[in-house]
């Protein structure tokens, strides 16, 4: 099930809210657990057992690592081996066989394995839990139901953010659902829904239309590349907003996953703002254990390279994701060694440099067919005898101009800054409150109208 669907909004959510708020405190986690399993079962009936297995297995190993300290290291290794083994089997095994075949000229049967939705997310959450217990950062969950509620919690189950146990363990046992938190959650959820339905989906249509042009042009390639970037941003950050908002409706505080990444001043800055929960996972569980920046510049560069190869591969079993990761790894190393000072002293140039490199990165991300990717990149830079523009290109530019402008503005903190300025004038606060209420209602109404008549509504990050 996806959040941006009629089924979720008007059937699943009312029933879950009703059950959750009508029952006593001690049953609330049970409601959330059943609701979360039902949520997963709706989208992936066959693989519900994989999720249940992951809950039981990691709970058991968490307890064992905590109780049997003398065997903690081998237990953790087994736990990681099983978790990443499952991830490898479901996500990478087919890709691995394909590459073995082409590398060694073999004809091994490539298995057609369907990947359980969200396996990358819940595997990373589960491993962060057992590693944190091993490092004595957290205590193990009180019981299996509490842990299963954490791991399967439907707001963040299938597309993140990657919520660490340490950030919600207290709230799992004892949380307070307040009116203001619930209202905050509604606001955040509505904004996320609008980002996804009114912007990401519409930009997705533009991407598809420009991909089918009878005569591609340089301008069309650039518009498409910008639209791909914005679509990915609003798709994923919209989902994170909805997850955070839903969390608040049930009394949880999930950490932020995006901080306006498209206004970053460097690629280093970008990765502090984009998919924060993933980059901090890799930082804490791979980069720092490898030595981080503590063992000299060369070792640091090697560590960065390893982390970014893995980050790329995490996004999918395809070479474009590996190249995407390497691309960022190389850029981060260049920034660290050469560009840091230049970027700091030329802010406008730094923004432009970062934005263009981000656009190119998401083009690499978008095309899992390498020959299409190469054609696209050549097209962007005018290689291949292309005209600059055409009637079709201008038509789509005009038709989607307002959506593109709204998207570009919405990707910046401009609205947030405006609101904090208004907050400085108390006599405007009533007007601001009314506008906020009206805005949420309008966004909800519009989003539903787009969902009812939907033609394009995939969640891009579901495949991870």
């Amino acid at each position, binding site marked *: *099930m996806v959040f941006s*669907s*009629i*089924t979720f*909004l*008007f*059937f699943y*959510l*009312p029933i879950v809210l009703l059950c959750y708020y009508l029952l006593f405190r001690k049953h609330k986690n049970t409601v959330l657990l059943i609701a979360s399993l039902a949520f997963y079962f*709706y*989208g*992936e*009936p*066959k693989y519900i057992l994989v999720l249940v297995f992951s809950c039981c297995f990691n709970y058991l190993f968490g307890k064992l690592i905590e109780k049997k300290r003398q065997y903690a290291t081998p237990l953790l290794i087994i736990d990681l081996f099983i978790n990443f083994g499952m991830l490898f089997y479901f996500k990478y095994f087919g890709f691995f066989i394909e590459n073995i075949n082409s590398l060694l000229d073999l004809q091994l049967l490539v298995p057609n394995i369907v990947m359980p939705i969200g396996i990358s997310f819940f595997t990373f959450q589960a491993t962060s839990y057992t590693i944190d217990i091993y490092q004595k950062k957290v205590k193990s969950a009180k019981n299996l139901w509490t842990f299963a509620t954490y791991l399967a919690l439907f707001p963040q189950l299938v597309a993140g953010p990657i919520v660490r146990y340490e950030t919600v363990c207290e709230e799992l046992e004892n949380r307070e659902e307040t*009116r*203001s938190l*619930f*209202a905050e959650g*509604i*606001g955040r959820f*509505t904004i996320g829904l609008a980002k996804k339905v009114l912007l990401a989906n*519409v930009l997705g249509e533009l991407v598809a239309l420009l991909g*089918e*042009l*009878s*005569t591609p042009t340089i301008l069309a390639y650039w518009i498409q590349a910008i639209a791909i970037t914005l679509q990915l941003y609003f798709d994923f950050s919209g989902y994170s907003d909805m997850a955070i908002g839903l969390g608040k409706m049930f009394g949880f505080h999930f950490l932020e996953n995006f901080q306006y990444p498209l206004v970053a001043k460097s690629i280093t800055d970008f990765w502090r703002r984009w998919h924060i929960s993933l980059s901090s996972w890799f930082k804490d569980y791979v980069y720092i254990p490898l030595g981080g920046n503590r063992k000299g510049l060369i070792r640091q560069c090697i560590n960065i390279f390893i982390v970014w190869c893995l980050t790329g591969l995490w996004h999918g079993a395809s070479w474009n994701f590996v190249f995407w990761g390497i691309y960022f790894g190389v850029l981060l190393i260049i920034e660290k060694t050469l560009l840091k000072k230049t970027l700091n002293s030329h802010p406008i140039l730094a923004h432009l440099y970062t934005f263009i490199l981000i656009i190119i990165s998401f083009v690499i991300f978008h095309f899992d067919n390498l020959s299409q990717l190469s054609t696209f990149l050549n097209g962007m830079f005018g290689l291949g005898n292309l005209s600059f523009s055409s*009637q*079709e290109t201008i*038509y789509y530019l*005009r*038709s*989607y*101009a*307002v*959506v593109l402008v*709204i998207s570009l503005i919405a990707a910046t903190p401009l609205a947030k800054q405006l609101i904090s300025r208004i907050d400085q004038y108390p006599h405007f606060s009533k007007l601001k*409150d009314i506008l*906020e*209420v009206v805005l*949420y*209602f309008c966004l*909800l*109404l*519009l989003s*539903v*109208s*787009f*969902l*009812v*008549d*939907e*033609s394009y509504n995939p969640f891009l990050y579901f495949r991870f």
Partner: protein
Amino acid sequence: MKDNLIIGEFIVFIFGFFILSFLLPDQEVSVSERRHLEKLPEFSFQKVMDGDYFKSLDQYFNDQFPYRDQFRWLKAQAQFSLFQKLDNQNIFIEDNQVFSLSSAWNEKEIKHFTDKLLEIKKRYLTSNQNIYYSIIPDKIAYLESSIYPKFNYPRLNQTISQQLNSQTGAGSSFHYIDLFSLLSLDDYYRTDIHWRQEKISHIARNLVEEMGHPYVSSKMEEHTFSPFYGSLYGQSALPIEADTLTYLSNDVLDQIEVWNYEKQKKEKIYQPQALTGIDAYSVFLSGPSALLEIENPNQEEGELIIFRDSFASSLTPLLIESYHHITLIDLRYIATDLLDDLVDFEGKDILFLYSVPVINQSSILK
């Protein structure tokens, strides 16, 4: 106060529609979209485990959502007024007419179209048969505004002509009959993709005469039906003045019987009962049909086979007075392989009459 209002509007909204979904009866058909709506899927363990059950359930909830048409209207308004889009899902309104954007040039599909024609010629036609082809432009071709990208018709004609006649060899060639210069925007419905029968007598005359046959047409009586909402009307989801559908008849046409191979029964040329159905355009020759045989007892000469799409349904009644026998074959509904047993091609004139959207998506031709 603010928090209460936010919570109140959200709760009323989601619970309101949740309750309404159960209170309001399910709809069978969406008249504006001209399609059957999804019904509550039948439960089966197998379907649940395959995930098909939940997919159907999603579709069901979407289709049966309360005030669906009003939400579709709201979306269309938002697209045009708020986002200033020039079209909504490829549909736009200009000068009180609904248009569909031309699909992008598809080399592969166009090649498939000419290959299909060549395949039919090779399999079923002899070297001395007359073979004609004609292309019906979609109505956007006649729109004056230069904003909207249009299909490149000269390029299409040239491509098809080259592909057909480069492989003709010693056999008879395909003769092109131009319709592009004979049509205008006024010849099409405002809310539908099709041409209006009462406006295309000159097209019928031109086709018959270009095929070297005398054109015969008795005086026609006009039958009108209003309001006619065409397929583009529903897709636009916006209020626009309805069309009037007119069909032309006379004593000769009233007598003629049409053999429908699928239904295995004889029918009349016009089906007035279809006027009040989902697709009023089906008044012409019963709408989508794989294979029709029309015999005119008042005419002794002339046999024509038309490979066609839906445009021919309204055109054929205007041709039949000039022929003794017309066979209509719609390859969207019958495979080329099956024609061997069903159609006698010998000595008959052949006309391939297709609209651009079908040519550019010709893989639907079996």
